[in-house]
């Protein structure tokens, strides 16, 4: 399976040099080729597995348990102002 490594890198926001792209492209393709073998298995009548553990989802009560930890949680942010995160301009 051929893979467009440039597109995958762009979607993942990873910058690649030409050398890296040339090296990673065939590697990714061969990994996908390996996984593709699963397509040969006859799965007719086999229910799809949603999760490796056959556990049902535990649910959370609708009760507020978290308070305001803004100061602590914003400490690692590169830049904040009046409690807001400051990021490079993004606009539609």
């Amino acid at each position, binding site marked *: 399976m051929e893979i467009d490594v440039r*597109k995958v890198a*762009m*979607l993942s*926001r990873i910058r690649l040099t030409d050398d890296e792209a040339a090296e990673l492209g065939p590697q990714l393709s061969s990994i996908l080729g390996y996984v593709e073998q699963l397509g040969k298995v006859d799965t007719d009548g086999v229910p799809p597995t*949603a*999760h490796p*553990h056959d*556990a*049902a*989802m*535990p*649910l*959370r*009560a*609708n*009760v*507020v*348990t*978290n308070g*305001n*930890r*803004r100061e602590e*949680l*914003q400490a690692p942010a590169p830049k904040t*102002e*009046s*409690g*807001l*995160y*400051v*990021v*490079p*301009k*993004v*606009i*539609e």
Partner: protein
Amino acid sequence: MSWEVVIGLEVHCQINTDTKAFCGCSTEFGAEPNTQTCPVCLGMPGQLPVLNTVAVDKTILTGLAINAHINLESKFDRKNYFYPDLPKGYQISQFAVPLVVGGYIDIPTKDGGEKRLGITRIHMEEDAGKSMHEGLDAVSHIDLNRSGVPLMEIVSEPDMRSADEAIAYLKQLHQLIRFLGVSGADMEKGQFRCDANISVRRPGEPFGTRTEMKNMNSFRFIKQAIEFEVLRQIEIIEDGGEVVQESRLWDSVKCESRSMRSKEEAHDYRYFPEPDLPPLRVSQQEVDAIKAGMPELPGQLRKRFETEYGLSSYDADVLTQTLESAAWYESLVAAHPADPKRCANWMANELLGRLNDAGKDLSESPVSAARLAELLNRIGDNTISGKAAKDVFDAMMESTDSVDAIIEAKGLKQVSDSGAIDAIILEVMAANPAQVEGYRGGKDKLMGFFVGQVMKASRGTANPGMVNQRLLELLKG
């Protein structure tokens, strides 16, 4: 040859839980920025989401109300894209197997019938944070209080054939959601947001290429945006061009849409199963219990008001717009059972009209249902006329004095004493000898003049029925 418009709608509706979809942070609106966040909704590494049980129940309730199928096992997936207000770099959503599938909403048609509009699915997902750009130069500001707030996305079939049908569907859905109590659905707060998929085709032909109109936050804008887009597409095709499949942003100030090309490449969302969440399983018993607790729906309530209280379909519609107003009406009728129609008239025209003028909500009404009933009882027992009651009602909106005290103070007590009414009539007759002669000479129409004069002389307090009766008698001479 004519064009056929094809519209499908996606509504993002905030589920009104106390806490977020996957963590114990508060969802309260209007808090200081970033004071309602935690490592889970900030997308810190190693944090595990745990789904809010009430968000599940409310989505199921909504599904049941649109006659949908509830999947007893549903799954969550990751929708991947990069944006600064999406801290995890993906949104947890339901892609492959949503909680709710199928269902429909019936909208009224112009010929008095109904049209059934299909609903494809309702899936659960989480909201992103809020980005702010206004007044900022090279930066944007991010508030993540909304990050992780639970949403349900209600996806319709492409069943609507005009902007009006789309609006009818949205209004019906909006009302239903408010009735169910599953969302505040406040459009100004972004709790009920709509994207529209729009295309045109020649009748009978396959669907044309569609565009997706985004960012429409009022019924009026949605109608404008759809109408604009339909004309734009027809013009392109009639000029020999082709419609490009794309997202477009509605600019409500300029009244036009523009392409969001920047979004196109990001449309590869690379959904994959959310490894942090096992399947969501609900039992048929749980679904049945939710169904048993379902409130009366708007359509049912409207029909009951028409049959049980003899209301016109218009009044029934006005009074059942919200659950609160329906409950208000029913407590009014309970306190003034003699005349449910009078209750409807007074509530719909006098009360709601005055509240609307004052920019107030029914919940802020200075007059309670019990107090309005006292006033209606005074009309019922002929203490005051309907006209005088409006004066009393004006005063009730401003003061907490008892209804009887206001009637007394304003001297509006209806005069039903025939002696007193006769005295007024004789006075009026003495003051208008020419009209008396005219009437007696056969000008029956002058009756109206006399009624008016007597009512005026009594400052509206004379019982109109008795005035008529006594005038006929006394004018005979």
